[in-house]
Each structure stands twice: as structure tokens, then as C-alpha cells.
């Protein structure tokens, strides 16, 4: 390969890399402007709150089954695994603490967020994408109705409100699952299970931080879901790709944000 060919080859690769980076940055900028516009134009969603309530139903209530069942099983597994480890150190009565802290701090927001992204996020993207593909968004524009205010904002707020409630219910069901396995099945003392949990779980450091996490995940997942739907190529393939992107991007965003938030909340302080 001659020097000129190597130079040409390298330049081609650099150009492709540059294009990919530029395109990514442009898309991030577009998504940020989209979020800003959605928040600024949330008047309709808040003034006519029944629009948002309908979306809370679709994103939240219809996700309840998967959230509650998953929470129950995650709590049960946590209790089984936790007991195996704790009993080696004679600390099996701390099972309640282990289950509760694991759920409230981490698993509740994270697993509920991942399930929310798969169940509600994908549905939001598919619905908005299909509305675009069938010209419903254009029809709204032609009726002088802003689709971001009328379609996107209620879904965004519906998701943001639903997510912390779902995460809380996930954690509650998980603790109940841990109780069933730990106390009812294995025979850990019920008084120790609950009292140690009550003593160890702090309202601000644990519960509030868990709630903050779930709110952040709710904003991230719903933002990604509405943006991908609105930005979808209006074809069957385009909507399918957008739906897949929502689940993948949301899941990665949740895990990355969880690391950052955990580092900020639970390291270096009293609760570390």
C-alpha cells in the first residue's frame, strides 16, 4: 500500500469518525432542546391534568403487574441468598436490614427502572412513532394544536410521576417477599426482622436517596422514550428501531446514572 493510499484510507476513517461524533453531538443537542421545549410547553399537561392522569394509567397502572410480581420474586431471592451468607456469620437476624437496604437503595429504583423502560418506555415510543407514521401528529399540527404540548408533555409527566411510585411499590413488594421467605419459610424471628430493619433504614439517607434515584430514572427513561418516538422514521421499520433504541438506551442510562448517583449519595458520608 502506497503512502498516498494509507493517507487516503486514514482520512476516510477520520472523516467517518468525525461524522459519527458530529451526528451524535447534534442528536444530543436536539434531544436536550426537545426536553426543554417539552418542559416549557407543559402548561396543557398540567392545566388539563386528566390528560396526564390518562398517561399515568397507561405508563403506571398497566405496569403494576410486572412491577409487583418482579418485586416479590426479587425480594424472595434476596432473602434466600442473604440468609445463606448472613447465617455463616451468625447474623441471620439482620436479614430484614439486608433486604430492605438492597431494595430501597439499589434494586427498587434500578430494577423497577429497567422494567419501566421495557414495559412503558417501549410502549410510549411505539405509540408516538405510530402516530407519526399514520400522520396523526401532522394532523394535529394542521389543526393548530402543538403535538409536543398535547401528546408529548402529558406522556412525559405521566412517566415521571409513575416511576417513583412504581419503584416504591417494587421495594414494598420486595420487602414483603423477603418477609415471606425469611420469616415464614426459613424461620427468622419476625421481631428481629422488622425492628432491625426499622432501626437501620434511614429516611433521608436511604429512602429519600432511593426516591431521588427513581425520579432521575423516570425523567431519563421517559425523556428517551418520547424523544425516540417523536424522532422515529415514520415507517414500520423506523418505529421498530426507535422502540429498540428506547429500551437499550434507557437501560444503559439507568445503569450509568445509578453509578453516578450512588457515588454521590453513598460514598464518603455517614451512610457509606
Amino acid at each position, binding site marked *: 500500500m502506497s503512502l498516498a493510499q494509507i493517507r487516503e484510507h486514514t482520512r476516510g476513517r477520520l472523516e467517518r469518525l468525525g461524522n459519527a461524533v458530529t451526528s451524535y453531538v447534534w442528536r444530543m443537542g436536539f434531544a436536550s432542546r426537545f426536553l426543554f421545549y417539552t418542559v416549557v410547553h407543559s402548561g396543557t399537561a398540567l392545566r388539563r391534568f386528566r390528560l396526564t392522569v390518562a398517561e399515568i394509567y397507561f405508563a403506571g397502572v398497566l405496569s403494576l403487574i410486572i412491577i409487583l410480581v418482579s418485586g416479590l420474586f426479587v425480594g424472595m431471592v434476596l432473602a434466600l441468598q442473604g440468609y445463606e451468607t448472613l447465617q455463616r456469620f451468625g447474623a441471620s437476624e439482620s436479614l430484614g436490614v439486608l433486604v430492605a437496604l438492597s431494595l430501597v437503595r439499589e434494586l427498587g429504583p434500578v430494577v423497577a427502572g429497567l422494567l419501566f423502560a421495557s414495559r412503558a418506555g417501549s410502549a410510549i415510543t411505539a405509540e408516538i412513532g405510530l402516530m407519526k407514521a399514520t*400522520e*396523526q401528529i401532522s394532523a394535529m399540527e394542521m389543526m393548530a394544536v402543538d403535538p409536543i404540548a398535547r401528546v408529548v408533555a402529558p406522556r412525559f409527566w405521566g412517566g415521571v410521576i409513575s416511576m417513583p411510585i412504581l419503584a416504591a411499590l417494587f421495594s414494598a413488594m420486595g420487602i414483603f417477599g423477603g418477609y415471606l421467605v425469611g420469616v415464614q419459610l426459613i424461620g427468622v424471628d419476625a421481631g428481629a426482622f422488622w425492628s432491625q430493619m426499622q432501626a437501620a433504614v434511614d429516611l433521608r439517607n436511604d429512602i429519600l436517596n432511593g426516591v431521588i434515584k427513581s425520579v432521575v430514572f423516570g425523567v431519563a427513561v421517559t425523556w428517551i422514550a418520547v424523544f425516540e418516538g417523536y424522532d422515529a422514521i415514520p415507517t414500520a421499520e423506523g418505529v421498530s428501531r426507535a422502540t429498540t433504541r428506547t429500551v437499550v438506551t434507557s437501560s444503559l442510562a439507568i445503569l450509568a446514572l445509578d453509578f453516578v448517583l450512588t457515588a454521590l449519595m453513598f460514598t464518603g458520608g455517614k451512610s457509606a
Partner: protein
Amino acid sequence: MVEIQNVAFGYDAARPVLRDVSLTIARGSVIGIMGQSGCGKTTLLRLIAGQFLPSRGAARVLGELTSGLDREGLYGMRRRMGMLFQFGALFTDMSVYENVAFPLREHTALPEDLIRDLVMLKLEAVGLRGAAQLMPAELSGGMARRVALARSIALDPQLILYDEPFTGLDPISFGVIVRLIRELNDSLGATSIIVTHDVQEALGVVDYVYFMAAGRIIAEGKPDEIRASREPFVRQFVNGELDGPVPFHYPAPDYPAELELTEN
């Protein structure tokens, strides 16, 4: 009502879709914009609706220069317009009643009983008052188009735009839509613009026709003048001839050579 002056437009600079288009549409008329797929007629309709802005020239619609309007101005103009989309574009999560009520709820503060009366009035006009509680998925293609028509006239628009309103309709539904376009235009005192490639059918309902090809208006006139046109493209299109200025074959390499029937 609509004045398009020397308008050019392209989705990118290298491929212009409209080149120097000019037309004037008078109040009260039903106008047809015809031509084969890809000639730029739907783009022209979107330009009139303010969804695109001309890259050159000017589009004046309902007295407003579309390129000079901000979002509020554009929405203000669109409140005086109705548009029927190719497949209706009904909101699939709302009933027929809610679809027709949608623009009334969004743009007026009318009490519910008055909205109900208006919705029933519009549905009666398209013959579907009895279908008010059905969902869009329960409607045939022709019925969905009629509901969309009722929705587009909910605010008594001055200008009604039709994007391929006859596509995929059976003959009965087709006849109903043709009759409704004319009746609604005349009863509302509106102006209608129909973009279509169903030439024979549309010539029966329009007052005046603009014929487009390759982003330009190549012929215009009253329906009888179009039928009698000697312009080769118009003749081919109106009579549905297989070959003419628009060739049957898409440009391709030599056929025998492609099939490797010739030596070398």
C-alpha cells in the same frame, strides 16, 4: 385566497422539488392540482399549509405571507384551514365523536352540550351521525375518510386542503367523497384544493385544474379544457396511455446485454 408566486422548494439544494410555480386560487372555488406521483403536488399542498416554507418566491395564504409567520401566526392561519389526509389520520385512541370534537375542545371554550350539537351536525353532514360512538378501527376506509372530513370542517374553515382524498376507495365511497367535497365547499362558502392523481374522477368535481410535472405547472384550465388538451403529457395522463412523454420503461442498460444473450 391563495397566491403562489414564483415559488421554488427542495428538501435539499441539489434536488429541487418545485421550480418556479405560480398560481392564484379564488375564493369559493374547488381547485385540482394533478400530476403523477413525485411531481411535487403534495409538496405544494404542504407549502400552502405552511408546513414548508418556499426557498424562493412567496406563498400568500388567507391573506398571510407564510414565510413571515411565527409559530403563533402559523397556528392562527391553520385555525382557518382544514386538511383531509390521504388515509384520514384519525386519532386511533379516540372515538369518532371525540375525533370530531377534538378541534372544538382544543380551540374553543364551548360548553359540552354545544360541542355535542356541533359534532352531531358535522357527522350528519357526512352521513355518519350513527357511527359517533365507533372507534376508528371499526370503520371502513371510506367511513374513516368521511369522519376525517367532518373533523377537518369542525371549525368551519375558509380553506380546505385534500391530500389524495380518493386513494383506495371503493366506487360507492368514492362517489360519496366527491359529492361531499362539492357540497361542503359550497355550503361553507369555503375554498378547496384537491391534490390527486385520480384525474378522471377529480375532473368531475373541480372548477379549475393545475397540471404539474417535474416541479412545474405545465398546463391549467377548466376540466373540459384539460380533457381537450393537446399537451402530450396531459393527454397521456388523462387517457391513461401506457407510453408517451412518461416512458413505460425506467432507464436501464441494454436488455439483451443484461440477460447476457449477446456475445462480448
